[in-house]
């Protein structure tokens, strides 16, 4: 096993910044804060430039410029005010204006105008998310929960279905608060809590795995890419 330390400057910068970030584990210090502030500043600049060139320019600026320059739509038709998707339309000026209205928050007296844009954003997203959630998380999940409790010739599948059904019903009844959890309902709720605790335990295990994965990723970078230990 030998060292093959990287000669790439970008790798060195990344490695040093990683070590700066790790130094917080010992105690708070100036090099950690330098890495933290650098990250925040670079991220903000990167996001602004990225969004400008990948969203504003191709989706708003270029279509509007072509529209007002008299370019024709893909169907060979005059492009202004013809609402066919895929063509360049002046209607894009509307989201453009709404986007600009968001910045009125910077100017005290007319700040209320930004609410119009926010109303559109909230309305559109509420509509999209509601239908998506209803279809995918409600209807499809109810369908998926309706399983046969007896699977002929497959004892494991039968047992699995029974455990699933008991777990689902007892967990649901745990969240039934219209009656005090005493007697039969209390016993069922306690069983439901056991199932919920199993799911919390699984969730915790997966969370630990995710966090350790991040640490492993950085160590792999330091050991393999930076130090070239092999």
């Amino acid at each position: 096993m030998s060292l093959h330390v990287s000669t790439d400057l970008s790798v060195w910068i990344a490695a040093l910044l990683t070590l700066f970030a790790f130094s917080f584990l010992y105690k708070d210090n100036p090099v950690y804060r330098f890495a933290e502030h650098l990250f925040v500043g670079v991220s903000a600049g990167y996001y602004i430039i990225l969004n400008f060139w990948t969203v504003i320019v191709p989706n708003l600026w270029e279509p509007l410029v072509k529209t007002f320059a008299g370019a024709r739509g893909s169907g060979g038709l005059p492009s202004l005010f013809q609402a066919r998707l895929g063509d360049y339309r002046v209607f894009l000026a509307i989201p453009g204006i709404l986007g600009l209205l968001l910045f009125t928050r910077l100017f005290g007296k007319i700040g209320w105008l930004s609410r119009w844009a926010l109303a559109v954003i909230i309305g559109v997203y509420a509509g999209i998310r509601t239908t998506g959630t209803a279809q995918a998380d409600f209807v499809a999940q109810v369908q998926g929960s309706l399983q046969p409790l007896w699977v002929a010739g497959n004892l494991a599948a039968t047992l699995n279905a029974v455990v699933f059904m008991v777990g689902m019903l007892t967990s649901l009844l745990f969240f039934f608060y219209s009656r005090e959890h005493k007697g039969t309902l209390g016993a069922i709720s306690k069983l439901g809590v056991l199932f919920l605790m199993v799911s919390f335990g699984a969730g915790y295990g997966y969370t630990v795995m995710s966090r350790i994965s991040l640490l492993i990723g950085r160590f792999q970078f330091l050991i393999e890419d930076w130090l070239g230990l092999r």
Partner: protein
Amino acid sequence: MSWHTALERLDRRWIFLVMALLVAGPLIFPPGLPLHVSPPVQAFHDTIARIPNGSTILMSCDYDPSARPEMVPMTRTAFRQLLQKDCKVVITVLWNAGPGLVEATLNDIAREFPSKRYGVDWVNLGYKAGDDAVMVLMGQGIANAFPRDYRGNQTRSLPIMRDVRDYSSFPLLVSISGGFPGTKEWVQQVQSRFHLPMVAGVTAVSAPEYYPYLQSGQLRGLLGGMAGAGEYEKIRGENGAATRGMDAQSLAHVLVAVCILLGNVVQWAKRRERA
């Protein structure tokens, strides 16, 4: 000072040090702990294996560098499997810090296939802001949502996009997701509306959220975190970053379990002493 008081007052930096040694050690000297393939991972692989060779596949890589250790190994193996099947791959990114990392990862794999050409066999459409709204818009036309690709080409001018209209052009969606927007939104907005078959690779922290989708058939296969990526690499006979990291992962989990046990023992001992 009693043993449990000493444990209770233990400087947590000792735990950090032991964790660092347990993670670094196996990466330098891999013990080669066994790794078993779970059914959801096998299903992920088999679903891709079953699609006809030469199909055009939609692959959404929705993550950024913060999820790199879990997401990149999945992306590499899935993209490699698709190119080996001569599939054409259309890639999208819905996380704003993701396109650069995704582009580098795809280029790295594409270099293994000298006959595969950008714009013909695969295309990176890059990032688009809008989350769920982008997914809905793609249903009305992929090129409408992504007029230009990541490299600045007009999307409609690319040969790979000639036969791509909307979701009906794809037999499968491969979602590699680090959180929101990601697999959950693809299931809600695309799988349930357009009935596009889906497989997903997700971060471990979010994996429990997706098992109901797997159980209901909304997902055909699931990779959960680094373990899922490692199992997938094992099926494909690869020795990737996830496989190399799994030894460290296992030992780190043992330390966490020991810490939890010791913490409970200390609390139990304190209660007993008070009584």
